[in-house]
């Protein structure tokens, strides 16, 4: 055992990670020396063992990366290639047109309509979904009778295939014969044109997304909540914090990394939404007048009915960039929240300034 590096004893808890890594750096030196000394004396078996030690981890992770290269990276690069050509779906590759496809997509009002619809459906689904998932998770985190039953129940919608969800919801929200229409009629309200008006159609589609994903996210958040040490709650309770206070001051801050994960996956999924709007009115690509045509549906329409593969590929890349941007925005927001955490530090930095003026006032 080597002595604990002095620096670690000085650092607070948060520094532990860094000090650990410095420990391991120093520890490699003796090992390297040993290997150098005995290199000539290595038997075949030792060499094999060495090889195994160094190479096999890469082999273990290789399947993922090979598959990722095949079905992830290759299509992305190939799409980029397609997007630079005048490319007809059936007739194939045409002339090189540079960025003309991007230009025509970005100047197409239908693209911006799809962009707006996507953002609108995303907001209508992501926000309520997160709120409900967090609340449900918090409820399930309490001591309940039949815990497993409740937990499995909320996951149930997730098991149902999105196509089935879309078909069922399309019937529920049928403007003429759906149960929602029946309810509205019962209360003497005007029928809502679910598949014709923009906002109602977005709400209907968002409700499919919410129905399917709220439980899933709740379970992930629940797992994060379960990982919070119970004694933190106990001390807070002893200090007189009530349940709601504990939820806001302990639960939410401590599940933040998981919340961020959920937000990011919801963003990526939300921007790529396709099945639900496609099947909400299967005979169109997002409504007769594109009331709920999302970016991916716009892409689909370009690629298949309109057979313009080049522009569809350009749209795919634009969507890719939008998703990266959304990810970066998420990241920036996260960082901003984190810096808010360190408020005490900020206050201590400002204090001298405040003190001086105060003193100055006195003098």
């Amino acid at each position, binding site marked *: 055992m080597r002595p604990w590096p002095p620096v670690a004893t000085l650092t607070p808890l948060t520094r532990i990670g860094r000090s650990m890594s410095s420990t391991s750096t120093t520890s490699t030196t003796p090992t390297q020396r040993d290997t150098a000394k005995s290199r000539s004396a290595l038997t075949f078996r030792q060499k094999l063992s060495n090889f195994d030690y160094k190479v096999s981890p890469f082999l273990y992770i290789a399947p993922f990366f090979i598959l990722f290269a095949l079905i992830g990276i290759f299509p992305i690069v190939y799409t980029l290639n397609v997007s630079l050509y005048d490319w007809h779906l059936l007739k194939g590759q045409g002339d090189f047109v540079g960025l003309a496809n991007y230009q025509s997509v970005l100047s197409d009002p239908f693209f911006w309509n799809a962009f707006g619809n996507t953002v609108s459906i995303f907001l209508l689904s992501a926000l309520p979904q997160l709120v409900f998932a967090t609340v449900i998770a918090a409820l399930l985190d309490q001591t309940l009778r039949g815990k497993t039953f409740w937990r499995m129940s909320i996951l149930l919608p997730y098991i149902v295939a999105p196509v089935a969800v879309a078909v069922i919801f399309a019937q529920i929200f049928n403007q*003429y014969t759906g149960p929602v229409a029946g309810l509205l009629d019962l209360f003497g309200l005007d029928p809502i044109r679910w598949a014709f008006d923009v906002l109602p159609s977005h709400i209907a589609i968002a409700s499919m997304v919410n129905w399917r994903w709220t439980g899933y996210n709740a379970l992930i958040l629940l797992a994060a909540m379960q990982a919070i040490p119970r004694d933190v709650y106990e001390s807070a309770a002893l200090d007189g914090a009530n349940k709601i206070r504990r939820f806001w001051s302990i639960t939410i801050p401590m599940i933040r990394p998981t919340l961020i994960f959920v937000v990011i996956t919801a963003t990526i999924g939300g921007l790529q939404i396709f099945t639900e709007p496609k099947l909400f009115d299967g*005979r169109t690509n997002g409504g007769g007048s594109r009331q709920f045509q999302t970016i991916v549906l716009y892409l689909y329409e370009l690629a298949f*009915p309109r*057979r313009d593969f080049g522009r569809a590929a350009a749209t795919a890349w634009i969507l890719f960039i939008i998703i990266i941007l959304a990810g970066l925005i998420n990241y920036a927001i996260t960082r901003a929240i984190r810096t808010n955490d360190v408020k005490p530090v900020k206050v201590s930095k400002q204090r001298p300034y405040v003190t001086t003026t105060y003193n100055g006032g006195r003098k």
Partner: protein
Amino acid sequence: MNSRRATTATIAGAAIFAMALTGCSASGGGSDDGKITLSVTTFGTMGVDANYEKYMEENPNIVIEATNLEGGGAARDDAYAKIAAGTGLSDVVAIEEGWLSTIQEVSGSFVDLRDYGIEDVKSDWLDWKYEQGTDADGRVIGAGLDIGPQGICYRGDLFETAGLPSERSEVAEYFGGEDASWDRFFEVGNEYVEASGKAFYHSPRFFWNSFVNQQAEGYYKADGETLNIEGNSALKNQLAMIVDAETAGLGAGLPGWDVGPQAKAGDFATYMCPSWMLGIVQGYYDEGTTDSGWDFADVLPGGAANWGGAFLGVAESSEHKEEAAALALWLAAPEQQAAAFEVAGPFPSTVEGQALVADSTNAFFNNAPVGEIFSARSEGVIAQVKGPEDSNIQDNVFGPVFDRIGQGEITDGDTAWDEAMELLNQMVG
């Protein structure tokens, strides 16, 4: 740690992974126990299932794997995607008239049926149908299946309640008989609406399609390349007439398809019925229904016209072209066309097939002599030349406009026309 075990495990793991990768390619349509599997993709209600059974009985070495897609649009996208991918097309593929010309742009994806003896039976088909299946180079890529002569489906019971004639020959006469015009059709519609307080039809879309198909030149000029829409006063006038009819309450404001509940409730009383539509209307009701009130009249405002119809093509990528072509030609032969007509209503495109169904009646449509009516309705039909964007224009240019008209968002003809032109320029401009 035992290093040898670890090494062995590594090698084993790599081997399993390699097997998993190669394993994917092991499957593929093949002939086990000497049988040949042929895949067939159709759409809508083509009434071919019973024919498959019969073919498999007569040809024990053939197994047919059938896929039926819900609508022509789905079938179109499916075929496009598979042609683009260069793989995945069924051995036999049903192609709709509306997108046949697009397929003919890449006609090499389908075999030339002349190599499989279609010329020997060429005289079976109506000339124009055979002509449609032939591409610019003279390759025959589609064997004609059905054609779409049109009559008017109507609710005899509702007509009677509204004080209109309800017997089918009287109804045909009331609409104007041989001289039936669209003006008269909407006039009758107005009478019905006034008397019953209900809508006359579910959606104006089908009547529009019918009208477009009646023109000597439709969305395209006869060359199949030049658009024929902007400045086309016949289309513009018809659109204005439809807008007026909608404003007067003739339309029920329903979507084009899937209106079973409303049909049963009697929310509308007429339906534009090309032959293949009979199966769709019938499909709104339980099997064996005979008291629905629907009947079928031998009349079409504006004169005879064809709307739609399918072809069977054999994919060039098929592993069993010979057998697939034999199946396609068999399915398109007069007897099978007649059998399909009896089941679902698509009217035969062969002269003999039409003769076979001449005495056919349809119990669902009040025992209407459908064979006789369609035969009369297909007299004088001239096939219209379709262009590559034909089905696109129908769905994405005029479709949305009719939705907006149906929902009361557009109330004058000029606005409707302008909106359509704007969409047209967006789509194909």
